[in-house]
């Protein structure tokens, strides 16, 4: 790995180089190259001479001279090159090492000034005037612009070391994955905390349903006269959809019984704000589209979606990641229950506004994917978004060289993402190997073989046959033994089974499995004859509902194992993923004619970018400390914190209340929902007046959570009353010293007295 370091004076380049030297990197500095050249020419390496030699070299060898010279010194691919200052030098290096990374180390001016050493000017003005010379005259500005990675060094040495470790680890991983040709993109869906996107229903999802409506969907021809693959796949499954209807959380719009209203302005504005945060270009006119979705999750058979921004980027530890699009769209209805012939959906989720952010396939590694997802999530939380389970979802797109673009949906946790991507990369690599070994074949005949199994020992087959179901059998020519092969996290046999399972059956049974487990050896012998199978053929059966279509789906997939790896949508499951449906094309989009195009005018563009959580965190760090700032910004109560911080000056204590204290109470089973903003304000008023101590905050909020808002009993004993108590205690314990008295009083009155005050008074009384 070749790493070039750049940055302004005292940003930490040398520190980084020295640290990485410990990590077995070789270090070369550009100034050492110059010094060497000076020595060659028998010149003292004074500042003047260095500059003269530098200019001479550039004249003789071109602007990238130092780059060329340093290249001669590189003897392995494990080098740190410190202190490059010209674009040409870097270009020379990248010519030979295209994967070399340019890291820009950035530190705030005041911090850099504080790190100055004896050689540096002590005068601020002189110190910073060097920056301007470096940036403008010496071309450092352009070098910074072309950097691959930006590392901030404003914290402690340990923090910076950690960052360096992370970066190196990430780069090592990137190197590994780039050899495999891995490309990863993420799609994030975030629910917004507004009314619904195309009607005025509540997005709360708290109500109970009061009626149901039953529907069916038909596939229709798209704008371009073609039916989308994914669409006809869903219609093949022919299901009835049942929608649970809600009084305040759904209306005739969700029921597809009334045309949509205009787009919710607040949601649209947030979409535009997100575009600004991610440096996206905003079209001059936004068109609401219908994206055909016939799985029933949208009553109309389409999801309304609109592209509000494109071609942006987000910074990450491995450089910029492109943002291909930002959309504002409707949430789909969630499944309540799935039955054999019907799916029950809840209409209260349908139509909740979502911001969808799709990155370009610029993400380098599984870990990088998680990082980018987290960064995007944090930016989104700067807007008025919903929090909690299901309010944010990530889908990923993965491909390896020679593989195919695969979309994986349905992550329950962000932590699952890394593992799932790794499994998917393994799966594609395994499939590429299999592709080279097996031959494609034609569609095979599917036979109804129910009779063979009427007396079989397998219970679930018996049950299916008894209830009138059928068993279908067929073969996969030339695939014997291949179904045992591992695709990383599961076998090819299990992979194929999912192509059947999406149509309803529970799986397939094939002769690469141990048939004794099912007690089906004899039946499969019979099948061999019926299906006229050869030795190297797989024979398999599928039973139950839609078994014939399911069998066809398995054969279709297996038949192209030797030909190509199909693009598909998969569903994540415990770090692995399984087939869900073919990857949808673009044919399923056509204009939503019920909503006129939205002209993006000055008014719409005038909304300011909200302060990001990152910015809040930085700002708060200075006031309440880094750790507390981090946890309050991450907290679900952050919006509330911001609101209350206008009335409460002790924000440090406020953030402790919202993070640790509330967390504890809710863990202990108390209903913190009952604590209102007014409650918190009045408690803090008492705190400010000195009427209560911080140590009783938890007890007070615990009482409030139980509905008891009177906290008179927690008030501190003060003034004359306090003095009297202490006098009495001294009287009844005449021979005790200050410390013992203190212990006695504190034990007796605990949180109701201020220890400091008590000690003061004891001292005062004993003195007199």
């Amino acid at each position, binding site marked *: 790995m070749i790493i070039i370091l750049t940055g302004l004076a005292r940003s930490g380049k040398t520190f980084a180089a020295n640290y990485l030297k410990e990590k077995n990197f070789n270090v070369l500095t550009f100034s050492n190259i110059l010094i060497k050249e000076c020595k060659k020419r028998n010149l003292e390496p004074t500042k003047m001479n260095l500059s003269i030699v530098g200019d001479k070299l550039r004249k003789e060898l071109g602007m990238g001279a130092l780059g060329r010279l340093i290249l001669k010194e590189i003897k392995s691919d494990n080098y740190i090159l410190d202190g490059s200052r010209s674009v040409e030098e870097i270009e020379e290096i990248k010519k030979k090492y295209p994967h070399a990374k340019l890291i820009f180390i950035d530190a705030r001016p005041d911090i850099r000034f504080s790190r100055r050493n004896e050689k540096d000017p002590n005068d601020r003005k002189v110190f910073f005037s060097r920056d301007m010379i470096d940036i403008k005259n010496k071309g450092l500005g352009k070098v910074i612009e072309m950097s691959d990675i930006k590392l901030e060094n404003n914290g402690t040495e340990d923090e910076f070391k950690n960052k360096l470790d992370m970066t190196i680890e990430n780069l090592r991983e990137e190197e590994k994955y780039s050899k495999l040709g891995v490309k990863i993109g993420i799609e994030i869906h975030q629910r917004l905390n507004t009314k619904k996107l195309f009607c005025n229903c509540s997005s709360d999802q708290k109500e109970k349903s009061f009626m149901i409506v039953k529907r069916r969907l038909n596939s229709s021809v798209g704008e371009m006269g073609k039916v989308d693959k994914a669409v006809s796949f869903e219609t093949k499954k022919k299901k009835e959809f049942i929608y649970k209807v809600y009084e305040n959380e759904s209306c005739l719009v969700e029921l597809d019984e009334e045309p949509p209203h205009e787009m919710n302005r607040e949601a649209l504005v947030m979409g535009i704000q997100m575009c600004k945060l991610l440096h996206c270009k905003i079209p*001059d006119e936004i068109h609401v589209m219908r994206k055909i979705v016939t799985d029933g999750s949208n009553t109309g058979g389409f999801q309304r979606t609109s592209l509000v921004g494109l071609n942006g980027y987000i910074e990450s530890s491995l450089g910029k990641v492109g943002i291909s699009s930002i959309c504002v769209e409707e949430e789909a209805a969630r499944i309540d229950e799935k039955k054999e012939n019907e799916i029950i959906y809840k209409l209260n989720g349908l139509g909740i506004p979502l911001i969808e952010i799709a990155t370009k396939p610029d993400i380098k590694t599984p870990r990088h994917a998680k990082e980018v997802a987290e960064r995007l999530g944090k930016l989104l939380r700067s807007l008025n978004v919903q929090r909690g389970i299901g309010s944010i979802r990530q889908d990923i797109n993965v491909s390896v060289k020679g593989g195919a673009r695969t979309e994986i949906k349905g992550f329950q946790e962000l932590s699952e993402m890394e593992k799932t991507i790794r499994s998917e990369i393994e799966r594609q690599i395994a499939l590429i190997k299999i592709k080279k070994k097996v031959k494609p074949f034609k569609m095979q005949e599917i036979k109804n073989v129910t009779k063979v199994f009427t007396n079989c020992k397998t219970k679930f087959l018996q049950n299916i046959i008894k209830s009138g179901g059928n068993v279908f059998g067929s073969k996969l020519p030339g695939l014997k033994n291949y179904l045992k092969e591992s695709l990383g996290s599961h076998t090819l046999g299990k992979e194929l089974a999912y192509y059947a399972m999406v149509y309803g059956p529970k799986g397939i049974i094939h002769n690469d499995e141990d048939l004794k487990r099912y007690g089906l050896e004899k039946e499969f012998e019979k099948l061999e004859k019926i299906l006229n199978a050869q030795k190297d053929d797989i024979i398999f059966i599928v039973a139950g509902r839609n078994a014939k279509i399911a069998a066809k789906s398995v054969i279709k997939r297996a038949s192209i194992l030797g030909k190509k790896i199909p693009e598909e949508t998969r569903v994540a499951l415990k770090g692995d993923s399984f087939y869900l449906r073919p990857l949808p094309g673009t044919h399923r*989009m056509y204009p939503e004619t019920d909503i006129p195009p939205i002209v993006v005018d000055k008014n719409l563009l005038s909304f300011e970018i909200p302060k990001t959580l990152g910015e809040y965190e930085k700002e708060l760090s200075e006031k309440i400390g880094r750790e507390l700032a981090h946890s309050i910004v991450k907290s679900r109560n952050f919006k509330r914190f911001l609101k209350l911080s206008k009335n409460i000056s002790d924000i440090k204590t406020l953030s402790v209340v919202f993070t640790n204290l509330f967390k504890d109470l809710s863990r202990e089973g108390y209903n913190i929902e009952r604590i209102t903003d007014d409650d918190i304000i009045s408690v803090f008023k008492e705190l400010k007046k000195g009427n209560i101590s911080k140590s009783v905050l938890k007890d007070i909020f615990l009482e409030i959570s139980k509905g008891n808002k009177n906290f008179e009993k927690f008030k501190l004993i003060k003034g004359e009353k306090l003095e009297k108590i202490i006098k009495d205690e001294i009287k009844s314990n005449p021979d005790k010293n200050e410390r013992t008295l203190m212990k006695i009083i504190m034990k007796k009155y605990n949180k109701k007295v201020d220890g400091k005050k008590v000690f003061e008074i004891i001292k005062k009384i004993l003195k007199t």
Partner: protein
Amino acid sequence: MKYSKKIQSLISKGKIGDEILIESSKGTFFGTLMPRPEIGDKDSLIIKLKNGYNIGIKSKNIRSVKVIKKMEEKKAIREIHFDKSKPNISLFVTGGTIASKIDYDTGAVKALMNPQEILDTIPELSNIVNIADISRPFTKMSEDMEPNDWISLAKGIYKKIENGSKGIIVTHGTDTLHYTSAALSFFLQKPSVPIVLVGAQRSSDRPSTDAHMNLICSAYTSLSDISEVGICMHATMNDDYCYFIRGTKVRKMHTSRRDAFRPINDLPLAKIWPNGKIEKLQDYHKRGGKTILDTKFDNKVALLKTYPGSNPGIMKYLIDKGYHGFVLEGTGLGHVPTNSKNSWIPIIKKSIKDGIPVVVTSQTIYGRVNPNVYTNLRVLYHESKAIPGEDMLSETAYIKLGWVLGHTKDMDKIREMMLTNVSGEINSRSNPKTFLW
């Protein structure tokens, strides 16, 4: 194309549907050139990007537009082959949502110009009937229809029945569907085969369209022995079954719901399931016999509504314009302002005296007009001789009066005909089950 001149010159030889490359200050875009809807900014060029989204880019932000690939010819719509062994029926296509698709000129929904396209979206129809012929007497959104359209439709249908059609299906816009159904009920009496009118509240281009089930149920109805003129559409918000409702007793009761058509003062004729099951809910005219074609119609009839503060001068104005009859949609049991400053009584009296009939129905929609209960009613019906419209719908009464006036101008005869049930428009009993059905 409705694009601005600037956009047109940027596109130059490019045509809608071509693949284009736009160089702009917002980036480089590759996609398909889309037509400009009339709404929105005509100085924005619309491109369908490869990810399927349409976006608009203003001309001032565009540096160049290059045509990369000319549009491929669209594949012809697949041919649908009907099963000749199924019974022959005739399909009349008149327009409306059911026969509509996206219109890229206006950005709105537009009528299908090729009737075949309907069948393309509902191939299951070929399992039920053999659509022997498709007629398109006119293509109109239903709000644009006029009495002459009803006449030409009735004549067209009569011809098909005479030629041996086993059933008739008429696709129609929903706004005035119940006017057409009432008109056809008087123009085609005792039809020998079912005449089924059908519309859709959700356009056929969407997967959730109600056209699908409505048409399938209509096909089954057209083959049934319920030989009446009626409307066959969704009975509930569910996609479970349709109602076939008598053409004179049906009204559009909701702007957008798919179960908007309800029977008024009547039960539906039948429930029709999309699997062909039919449950009959009341007596009906049976298949067979000879259809009576009677399209005599006087279209100088007006339907007016009285309300607090309404000005009876409107009636005088129309009489001066040569109108021959009025249906007044009164209040409650069939009142019109009687003793107020704006009393309608004098003009009604004068009108009837001059041989211009006045029929009164009620804007309560449900229930029957009564000529006797209150004094003011007696003034209206007994003194002034207005004709109480029984339990007829205002719309039906309006069409019936035009039809009656097509036959006679004799006031007694008019009164007699208006009060005699011709095509199920008057029920002598008020069935308690029928309210808010």
